[in-house]
């Protein structure tokens, strides 16, 4: 193991000692949703969106019980969420809410979800701002899988794909290059969670 690798392992152990952790559930491919499930999920998102009209303070979403239900158990909704993201005619507001709701997905599934959203952007069914909102949520949100697991090949591949997108904002382009891929964002994330007394989930 190289030196940074050792440091990360030690750091992970330190984080484990400092913060309560929830072990990642084993990866399970999402079960395909029925049309009824997808429509039901879309209805729930629409209701949340009608009550939380602005997302500039996204933490207000946590005031919604139905949002918290999805956020705490995103795997159950991943297939429906991916299906709606791929749809034309769903507002950016609703797609952003879905993006926020998926933040607790285990790393592999989060990468899968962001990949699906990236494809949707490339196909013109989702806007870039929605994708950036989903990828760069505030550090108190979710697992921050792309930051925490930036060294994993599937994450690196996804980050490279994002960097190759001409629509990516320069702010977030720099963030990926200078902060995420250097490990600075990971350290910031761990320090920040510790600072605000919030747990880190691997």
């Amino acid at each position, binding site marked *: 193991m190289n030196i940074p690798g050792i440091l990360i392992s030690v750091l992970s152990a*330190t984080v484990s000692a400092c913060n309560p952790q929830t072990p990642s559930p084993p990866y399970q491919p999402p079960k395909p949703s029925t049309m009824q499930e997808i429509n039901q999920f879309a209805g729930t998102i629409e209701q949340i969106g009608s009550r939380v009209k602005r997302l*500039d*303070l996204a*933490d207000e979403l946590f005031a919604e019980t139905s949002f918290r239900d999805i956020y705490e158990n995103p795997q159950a909704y991943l297939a429906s969420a991916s299906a709606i993201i791929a749809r034309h005619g769903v507002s950016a507001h609703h797609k952003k809410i879905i993006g926020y709701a998926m933040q607790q997905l285990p790393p592999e599934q989060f990468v899968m979800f962001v990949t699906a959203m990236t494809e949707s952007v490339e196909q013109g069914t989702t806007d870039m701002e929605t994708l950036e909102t989903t990828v760069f949520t505030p550090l*108190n949100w979710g697992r921050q899988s792309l930051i925490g697991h930036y060294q994993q090949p599937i994450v690196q591949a996804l980050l490279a794909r994002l960097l190759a997108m001409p629509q990516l904002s320069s702010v977030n382009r720099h963030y990926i290059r200078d902060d995420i891929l250097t490990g600075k964002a990971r350290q*910031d994330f761990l320090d920040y969670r510790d*600072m605000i007394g919030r747990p880190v989930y691997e």
Partner: protein
Amino acid sequence: MTSNCSRPARPLNSQAVAAADQALYTAHKNDPRPNALFDAAGRKRHLSATDPAQECLRDEWVRSYGNAGGKLEDTTFKSDKRPGDVIQECHCSKATLTVTVRYEPLDAPVKDAAVTISGPATKSLTTDATGIAKFTDLPPGQYEITSRYVGTNKLADHARLQIGSTDWARATAHPPFPRNTWKCNLFVFDVTTEAGFPVPQKPHEQKKFGITFGTVMLPPNAEDWANSSSTLITYPTVATPEPGDVVAYANPAYTAATGHVGIVSYPKNGTPETKTLSPGDNGNVKQIMRRQSVSAGGVSIDEDDQIFWHYYDEGNTVETSRILFRRMSP
């Protein structure tokens, strides 16, 4: 008009009528507009014996008519008065208008709102502690009523100076907070300190590899501000906010969520209204001023009438029960 008022004798003297008309328009050409004689664009309004807005001008017109050589009826002995009674001057019936200015949401009177009425007369008054401005001795007619907040508060002023700033933006690193983090508490800490209201900080041990290597001082977070029994922040809590108070809510319902904290700002202007006053009326008008706050949002420092306040609009008692106001006083 009482029976004691002088009236032009019939038939009217057309030259004196024209002169009296001219004299009236000339005498009032510089009055604030719109009024009973001129519209807002300065066009003359037609003189009418039945327009209540012009009632208070009639005596003035009759005097001008007499001065211009028009003959007046002597009403002194045609009335029910007896010889020797004091003849009252001819007065039109004036009106009063009471304007009440209230906050929305969290209904309360707005002190220090400048209320302006424009119409047959133009006047301005500032509301008292009960939110009331009372206008008396008003010529009847249609008035436009406007209101704007003119009170001042040092902390609100400091906070408002930062509107549009991105120094506390989510995407900006502002030590000790890294990029992509909420910094509403840092904004409140910075402006309260700058305005001369000291706020204590919390020591936080920084660790790497399990070893403490330093201590950083952290500003109180939204949860500290919203905790009524906080030992860290001792500024008193209040039920009815005023500009310059700190407003905060915690979000204990969910561990991932942070709360939010900001400064109560000045309210929005009241929506202009019109009111027609008839002679002798004692009219009432209510002006609503929408509450606002200044806080660090995702992109910049914003003044806003929704953040914090929308929970009151929606009647969301769960969330409003988590909102706390603190009065910053020396």
